[in-house]
């Protein structure tokens, strides 16, 4: 369970998160929608401790992420994150990209890590690209590799930060299919996305962020069907 309690965060004078309260239950798929600058991506990087917060608490399975005593490297093994820019490691092959963290963080043996990496890469449809360098892959393939890389750590939670935003429209579908597959496997996921159709289809709940505030949260049918706030109505009208 991920519990976010009254989290505030500013970059300089700009307050990007203005007291967010949100609980994500195990097995739940939550998508976060909202305009750019609404704080949704920042929230994700706060959940795995890549960004510090100014006040409030974030608890992952009861462990406070930003507590001094928390071993973030250990906690991050539970929380996979995939970014808009996939950040493939260019000097490693696809297989090595995926094997790196299981080997170095979990101390897995080479054959075990390799078996795990192959399994995850096959899962995302890259079983035939193992010994290729990322520069030879399309954006969509690199993004799927990044997903496999995160999954190879067997995380309990997956965070997706606008993973299709930097992709050619032709390649969006293959990445969304991978996310659907994960959702149907029962993975607990938080997806920040601009893909409304996707949000409507896979989410258990959808949250709408507006100017650092979580303005609405509801199951997709309700949120998309009967938006309450004028801001959400405007947003949906603009993205429809």
């Amino acid at each position, binding site marked *: 369970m991920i519990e976010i309690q009254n989290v505030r965060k500013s970059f300089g004078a700009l307050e990007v998160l203005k007291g967010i309260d949100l609980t994500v239950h195990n097995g739940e798929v939550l998508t976060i929608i909202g305009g750019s600058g609404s704080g949704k991506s920042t929230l994700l990087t706060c959940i795995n401790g*890549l960004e510090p917060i100014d006040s409030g608490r974030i608890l992952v399975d009861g462990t406070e992420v930003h507590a001094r005593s928390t071993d973030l490297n250990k906690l991050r093994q539970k929380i996979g994150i995939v970014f808009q820019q996939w*950040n493939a490691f260019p000097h490693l092959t696809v297989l090595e990209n995926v094997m790196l963290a299981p080997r170095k*963080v979990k101390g897995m043996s080479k054959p075990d890590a390799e078996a795990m990496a192959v399994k995850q890469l096959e899962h995302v449809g890259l079983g035939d690209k193992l010994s290729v360098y990322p520069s030879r892959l399309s954006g969509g393939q690199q993004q799927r590799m990044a997903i496999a890389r995160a999954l190879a750590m067997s995380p309990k939670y997956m965070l997706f930060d606008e993973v299709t935003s930097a992709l050619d429209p032709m390649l969006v579908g293959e990445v969304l299919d991978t996310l659907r597959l994960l959702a149907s496997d029962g993975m607990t996921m938080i997806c920040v996305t601009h893909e409304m159709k996707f949000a409507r289809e896979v989410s258990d709940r959808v949250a709408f962020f507006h100017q650092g505030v979580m303005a609405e949260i509801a199951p997709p049918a309700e949120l998309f069907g009967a938006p309450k706030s004028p801001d959400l109505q405007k947003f949906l009208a603009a993205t429809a």
Partner: protein
Amino acid sequence: MFNYTFQWKQALARLPQMLDGAVVTMQVALLSMAIGIALAVVLTLFRLSRSRILSGIATSWVEIARNTPALFQIYMAHFGVASFGIHFSPWTSLLLGITFNNAGYLAENFRGALKAIPDTQARAGRSLGLSELQAFRFIVMPQMLRISFLPMTNQMVWAILMTSLGVTVGMNTDLYGVTQDLNALTFRTFELFAVAAVIFYLITKIIQLGARLLARRMFRY
């Protein structure tokens, strides 16, 4: 016109001794590069660290190495430290001086290379659970070394040429030192140093060629 008769035979007769000297030159240069690269990585980590003392040490090192004559650096490594009762052999002093210089220049090259690597690379590593040091070691450093490969080759050539400064601290077993001694013996100045220059040239060319071949094997991505 010139009142000088070339006597190449005398110089060429000394070729085996000079080639022995060339081997010493290469040993010193290679060793100074190997240690220099390792030190430059450490200096880079110092500069990345949040400690003011460590980054201060690294910055001073780089500033002195790059902004004072290499001759001064080698001189200090011999006669300078001797003032404090530390006595190194000419060979050791030369190695220390060149290594100091290499580390300073390479650390600066590494800094430039780091700028070409997006922060998101280390961030992606951290998000997978890698520690800061692991992210540097396995993700950032290999890319940094690749980007710096060409400047490293230049520094290697420079290290070979810097060995000639060893004569100032009494080094007489390297290529330049041997040539200098032979000159004192035979006075065939032009011929001997011309042969030495050709050897220097060939060594540096071989290094550049070797580096290119190595790069082709190492960097397949």
